[in-house]
């Protein structure tokens, strides 16, 4: 019998702990497929964050580290400098990357660190129970913005892809979503391009992936996909924000 579909070698057999309808699973699989297709599983070291994906070290079948909250880019920086022929990726949520880790991500980009960041934006802190994140949309209700995020009190949501694209050290910055099959395909393409950017030594690369949190949004998985399209994509436009072709 011909095998037409199988689990990527770059994923372990551990069962994901994610909630129904959460898109971490899709994003994990896309990264693993890229590592398989580029044949770099054994040359890759992944660093997972504090947040819902804190256990990602159990899911990726490559060398993995678990970082302190927000510090994955600093860890990846030192590792890449000492192991320049290896592939380093960080996997970070929006609280991790855009709030407590804002310093680390901006400076990794400014220095043009040759690492790949997978930034999963679901507009709130999932693991701790749905608190406001820097990416929470205006008007969005969370447990710590119970009257809806207001521009006057909580300020504006952070557009990380646009922000980091300004830095000379950034070589590839893209925002994608995984709310429908075409976007899933585009996300995989972007992750592969980011890893290839790293391989070519062009500089810092990041793919921001718009994700879902049905549990904390209080929506069904299908409604959550729709919510991404109707509420997130208008504020967080999809596309490539920086593509550097040479050093």
């Amino acid at each position, binding site marked *: 019998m011909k095998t037409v579909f199988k689990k990527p070698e770059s994923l372990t057999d551990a069962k994901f702990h994610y909630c129904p309808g959460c898109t971490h699973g899709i994003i994990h699989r896309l990264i693993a497929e890229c590592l398989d297709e580029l044949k770099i599983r054994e040359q890759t070291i992944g660093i997972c964050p504090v947040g819902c994906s804190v256990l990602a070290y159990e899911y990726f079948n*490559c*060398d993995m580290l678990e970082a*302190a909250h927000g*510090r994955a880019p*600093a860890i*990846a920086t*030192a590792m890449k400098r000492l192991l320049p022929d290896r592939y380093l990726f960080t996997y970070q949520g929006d609280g991790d990357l855009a709030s407590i880790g804002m310093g*680390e991500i901006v400076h990794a980009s400014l220095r043009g660190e040759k690492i790949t960041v997978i930034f999963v934006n679901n507009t709130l802190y999932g693991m701790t129970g749905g608190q406001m994140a820097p990416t929470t949309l205006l008007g969005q209700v969370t447990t710590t913005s119970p009257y809806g995020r207001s521009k006057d009190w909580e300020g504006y949501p952070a557009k990380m892809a646009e922000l980091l694209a300004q830095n000379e050290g950034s070589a590839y910055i893209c925002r994608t979503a995984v709310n429908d099959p075409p976007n899933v395909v585009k996300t995989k393409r972007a992750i592969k391009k980011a890893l290839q950017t790293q391989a070519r030594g062009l500089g810092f690369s990041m793919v921001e992936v718009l994700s879902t949190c049905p549990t904390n949004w209080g929506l069904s998985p299908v409604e959550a996909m729709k919510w991404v399209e109707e509420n997130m994509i208008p504020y967080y436009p999809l596309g490539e924000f920086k593509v550097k072709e040479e050093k």
Partner: protein
Amino acid sequence: MKKVLMKGNEALAEGALIAGCRGFFGYPITPSSEIAEYMARKLPKIGGAFIQAESELAAINMIYGGSSTGTRVMTASSGPGISLKQEGISFISDAELPCLIVNVSRGGPGLGGIQPSQADYFQATRGGGHGDYRIIVLAPSSSQEMMDLAILAFELADKYRTPVMIMAEGTLGNLMEPVIVREAVTEFPDKPWVTTGCVGRKPNVINTLHLSQEELEGRNRHLTEKYRMISENEKRAESFLLDDAEIVVVAFGLLARIIKKSVMEARKKGVKAGLIRPVTLWPFPDEHIQAVSRTARIILSVEINMGQMVEDIRLAAGGKIPVEFYGRIGFTPNPEEITRQLLFIAEREGLL
């Protein structure tokens, strides 16, 4: 053997290079910056990595990453910066990543001052960050020891898979003295636990999350057993004129070296004084204290703080002998000041 005039900070940095350190990640702060500057000049020329991090937080996490590659790595800072690193030191301790952390100390609390200090003794010897852990703390007293203890620090760090801290007063970092430059270390232990890409082996994971009660308790028991072994094997102290000593001074760092002169001067005036200089602040050399508790009349702890090591001395002495304290802030007492204190105690106790 080459003898070179070196600042303490430079001797320490050179010692780290001799020990095979190939990664330095730090953030500028007085009075430690010469270490970073030395590494910035040297490391790129020998295939190492020097990064001036954007913050102390980033620097200590670069140590986490750097050590995970199996490379000998270090950072250096001073009190306020060491405070910022504590989260990372806690993570590094649980992940059992060997590294050297240097605290060229200044006074606190707060921004404090840039004068010499030993006020970070509690912070250094009690782990410093969250959770149950300890780190080895070494206290050099000369430029030569800045070099030699840097070499020892990397050896101990690899042997026990633990961070090692060198704590030196700012004055020692900036003191220039002749140093015998040691031979380069050429033998390094295997590190099968590194995360360098899993070519030809199963993937390795470096992690500090232990969600189940059993796993967390097991982890803590494992670390505690390691700390017990370190306590058993690695206590170090210098004894000076203890045989007939009635008044024993306990002091560490450059201060202890200065107090040797006080002890000799006091002896000329008929006071049977001696000195214990802890070289490891953790593990604390309590056997040395216990030994003099049986033979001497009084112990005097002299520190550049308001009384921190004195608590460990009292614990070790177990109430068998009075333990007094003499401290200054932002200032290394000159030999005469401590001699006067010794004479004062001797007279009061009828030991003259």
